[in-house]
């Protein structure tokens, strides 16, 4: 049995929206982080003249949120919030910046109770919600650190033992880069998607204008969501857990490799195929010339790996790939191969039951089961469709 790609793409789209954050939950997350933002903005910080700048980064900013699975169970959503204080690097220290934000948070009785012990880079607030899954909010203290053309760049704090140092980041710049890669697909999708969201969630959004851009999902964003979910399940066992590809790598490579394909299936298969085409690098062999020139994944002469931050090439996302005999590099390409088999090759599976079981295992049973009907018709010979009638309309006549 071969499924046509259009149907399968629709199925993937549905699964992706199951693992996405529901609009109501998204609004709740926005309310939470805006609350934290307001509290931080109203604080006084020594030496600070001017306003704080507080904004989301990571999957909330990029529109690639997936329901996290840890140890096979749904865990809290991760919200990453940057808190930029208007200080000059020369006039402050990382320890000072970190502790100012921590102190301010602790000043609020509610937040003090939600606060985790100090993290390496951020302060974490744990929100347990009454309805459904909670939020895990990382507040990242930072100061502006413009470098040349990177005027959105920031300096963040890094704590190792009791030593604090500066580290570089540019989440706003990255967000803008990603938006650029996503722009064409976004423009095509925005109107229709916002209308659909408003129709389905009319109690939350009274009009199409109220639907935020962050809820629109292009095939690129859907592909990234599916890749992240597949990664979560693939690396679920503890042995290989530590070597799972980090989300920034998945997101960056996917965005580079996306060629404005119009449906999820084409986008995903284009990306996965090009990732797999880099696998020869693990054995030190050369890859296709056009991919090599793009330099998205590089193997250096000393054997180490390089995946550059597109808005800050000094930063190497693959700086740990060579450790433990290239464990992370191997894990990455094995995972790309698994993606191909589990999600793309399933189109050619003969037995519908094997297909169902396979997809459930690799993308999550709860997300998949609901939509299996789209691709796997009932295994008995075509039964008469059964309908149960509830709350029917009364027939009418207009004359």
């Amino acid at each position, binding site marked *: 049995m071969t499924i046509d790609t259009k149907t399968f793409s629709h199925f993937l789209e549905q699964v992706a929206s199951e693992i996405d954050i529901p609009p109501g939950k998204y609004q709740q997350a926005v309310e939470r982080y805006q609350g934290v933002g307001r509290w931080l903005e109203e604080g006084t910080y020594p030496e600070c003249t001017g306003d704080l700048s507080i904004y989301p980064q990571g999957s909330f900013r990029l529109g690639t949120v997936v329901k996290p699975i840890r140890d096979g169970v749904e865990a809290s959503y991760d919200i990453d919030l940057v808190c930029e204080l208007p200080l000059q690097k020369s006039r402050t220290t990382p320890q000072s910046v970190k502790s100012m934000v921590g102190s301010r948070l602790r000043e609020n009785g509610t937040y003090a109770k939600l606060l985790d012990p100090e993290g390496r880079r951020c302060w974490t607030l744990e929100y347990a919600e009454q309805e459904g899954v909670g939020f895990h909010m990382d507040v990242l203290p930072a100061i502006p650190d413009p470098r040349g053309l990177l005027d959105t760049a920031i300096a963040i704090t890094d704590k190792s033992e009791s030593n604090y140092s500066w580290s570089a980041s540019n989440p706003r710049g990255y967000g803008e880069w990603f938006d650029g890669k996503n722009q064409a697909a976004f423009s095509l999708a925005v109107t229709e998607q916002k209308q659909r969201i408003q129709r389905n969630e009319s109690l939350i959004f009274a009009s199409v204008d109220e639907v935020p851009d962050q809820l629109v999902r292009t095939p690129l964003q859907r592909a990234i969501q599916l890749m992240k979910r597949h990664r979560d399940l693939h690396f679920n066992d503890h042995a290989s857990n530590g070597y799972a590809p980090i989300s920034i790598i998945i997101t960056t490579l996917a965005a580079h490799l996306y060629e404005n394909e119009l449906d999820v299936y084409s986008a995903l298969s284009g990306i996965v195929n090009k990732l797999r085409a880099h696998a020869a690098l693990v054995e030190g062999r050369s890859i296709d010339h056009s991919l090599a020139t793009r330099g998205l994944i590089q193997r250096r002469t000393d054997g180490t790996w390089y995946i550059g931050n597109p808005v800050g090439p000094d930063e190497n996302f693959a700086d740990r790939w060579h450790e433990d005999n290239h464990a992370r590099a191997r894990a990455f390409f094995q995972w790309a191969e698994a993606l191909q088999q589990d999600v793309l090759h399933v189109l050619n599976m003969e037995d519908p039951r094997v297909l169902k079981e396979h997809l459930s295992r690799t993308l999550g049973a709860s997300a998949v089961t609901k939509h299996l009907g789209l691709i796997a018709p009932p295994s008995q010979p075509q039964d008469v469709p059964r309908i149960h*009638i509830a709350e029917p309309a009364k027939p009418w006549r207009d004359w």
Partner: protein
Amino acid sequence: MEGLVRRELQSQIDELRKKHSGLAVISETDTEVIVAGKLPFEASADGLETITGSFDVEIRIPTDYPEQLPQAKEIGNQIDSNYEHRYPDGTLCLAVPIEERRVFAQQPTLLGFFDRLVIPYLYGYSFWKKHGYHPFDEAEHGYEGILRHYMDSLQLKDEVAALRVICFLFEYGYRGHHDCPCGSGRRVRVCHGQRLRALHDYHTTQTRQMDFVAILNNCLKKIDDGSLQIPDALRIQILRILGKCKS
């Protein structure tokens, strides 16, 4: 935008055909897409017998779907020509427009249209044919049916209340803090808030205007013969709305 809407329509058609494989796209023009074929089903409803049937049907999907819902026809000459809820040309009168939208909103896809509107209609016809009465009741014909729908679903005391409700929906949409147009004296949000909200969501410009005309028409007869009084404020509101209506 045309292309993307067509893709979404295609997904809905694919979803429909996965369940009802006897249907297929018959033709596509600039103004509509026609899906037709055999529709066998086995339908059950709480407290009623299960009915198995099969009809030859056709639906015409307009380009502005889902702003406008498809027209459904039975094309196999199986439905009695004297069956009341059917136009001479075979088009099925599935429901009062606002109720059609309410039901469609529960599952706003072509599959939803078939499973929640077309098949229940055909079930209703089969049941009526067998037992002589409608399992789900029938709406009164014409404008009366529309008026009754408002009065029953909002439990309004008279037609004036229905008129106030439709005028409210027309002019304000949904306003939680306004006085409820049912005349209770309470605010919308603690009175008919939920139902008014739902009506507001389900209405399209077309259905709202039609319902306004229907309810007004019903009331005019009674106003003429003196059996119904409407307050001045409402009279002024009606004139205002008439000014906004397209003919």
